[in-house]
């Protein structure tokens, strides 16, 4: 008979991510219903049930350095089907917020770059307009040519605006971004 192995579980990481226990992290019993319906399943290193397991066991580095937390599209399929109401998308959002900027795996680095550009546009302008978004994202990700052939057609069809319509009152935006800066880890 093989020897029984005792695994050390460190619950502190889960408590850091979800101090009020809103997301039922420890209710997960690995039925894998989440991963069966997950759209990133074929592309990801970790699947949703594995990400939850890493968090349960306090395997912080593996969870934070996975591609999976960045490939998650936030489609909400996992939480909608979970028999224990584990809020996996919320856990993944908290993991993304906890990752330091430089520690994202190279293959998914465009995701946080996109998020940063997107939020910077909102902070400055109050709205996102695609042309500004695309130009800034292309510069940020150093990938200038993807989709560029679609621009003339989109302009012709009026699907891109050269000059965006912007909200007049933007003062409160600065306040909101300042007040949430700490929580966003920026």
């Amino acid at each position: 008979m093989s020897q029984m192995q005792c695994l050390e579980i460190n619950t502190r990481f889960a408590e850091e991510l979800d101090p009020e226990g809103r997301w039922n992290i420890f209710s997960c019993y690995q039925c894998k219903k989440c991963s069966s319906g997950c759209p990133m399943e074929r592309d990801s290193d970790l699947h949703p049930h594995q990400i939850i397991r890493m968090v349960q066991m306090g395997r912080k580095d593996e969870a934070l350095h996975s591609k999976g937390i960045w490939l998650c599209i936030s489609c909400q399929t996992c939480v909608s089907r979970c028999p224990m109401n584990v809020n996996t998308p919320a856990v993944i959002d908290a993991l993304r917020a906890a990752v330091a900027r430089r520690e994202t795996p190279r293959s998914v680095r465009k995701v946080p770059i996109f998020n940063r550009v997107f939020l910077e546009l909102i902070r400055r302008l109050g709205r996102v307009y695609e042309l500004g978004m695309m130009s800034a994202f292309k510069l940020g990700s150093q990938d200038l040519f993807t989709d560029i052939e679609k621009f003339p057609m989109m302009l012709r069809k009026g699907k891109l605006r050269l000059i965006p319509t912007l909200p007049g009152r933007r003062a409160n935006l600065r306040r909101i971004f300042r007040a949430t800066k700490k929580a966003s880890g920026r």
Partner: protein
Amino acid sequence: MKKLSYTFYPGCSLDSTARDFRESMEAVCDALGVELAELPDWICCGATSAHATSENLALALAVENLARAADSRCDVVVPCAACYNRLQVANLAVRDNPSVRQEMKRITGRRYDGDLNVRHILEVLVHDVGLDAIRDKVKRKLGGVNVACYYGCLLARPREVSIFEDPENPRLMEECLETLGAQPIEWPHKTECCGAAYSLTTPGMSLRLTGDILSMAKEAGADCVAVACPLCQSNLDLRQKDIERQRDQTFNLPVFYFTQLMGLSFGLPERSLGLHRLVVSPTEILKRFSTPNMAVTVSNR
């Protein structure tokens, strides 16, 4: 009929890539006597970058809009599925959780208790306006063409914000389109994910997801697709040629906003519905709509 009035939150997409959604939605609402008052100085809801960065930031951007809308006391109507989802999630969080309400007051400096209702335009048209009122406006029955109704993720999930009785098998768009005499098909990929904005960041994954949806629609016999979300429309329509090339397969499936189909059936001018903005040309399908196959029995009475 009593006048239906709403506060209208368009969201960023409806100003650019989804201008056709806005045009057709406004034309249809106008025809049905639904009054939409755009929320002045609305700001972006932050989807999905904000919630991937900070939960409080995501909630605060939504609450800032809702707090500004609160004076009107009207329900807030949202056409974009992602905006709808973010506004609804924040609205329920503020309504149900006093500590979130307190935190939002600290961040935004505004008091908002979650007493507005956040609604999606599809559900407003089917439930508030009603199928009978819609049927009364039909001038041209849209028979002879098979339509795959595609809902995507964020109108159906998570369950708390779903506008559908059954989030795994929504029927609202089918009910609406059947009223126009259209023929929605049964197919399994109604609520699969299209990859949303990941078409920009990890296009490989996103193109595969969108391709699977188009491929399934085609296999199920669809002649066109109807959607209620700007991101779904953009991925299925704008990227359809790329996917065809990648898969060496022809789809040729025009992707309409359901409001464009409503407008067509009401006899509104095509230009007012933004049909010229679709990337996959709808011309052939429009011809088939206009010569309805009389043998097709329309079961909407």
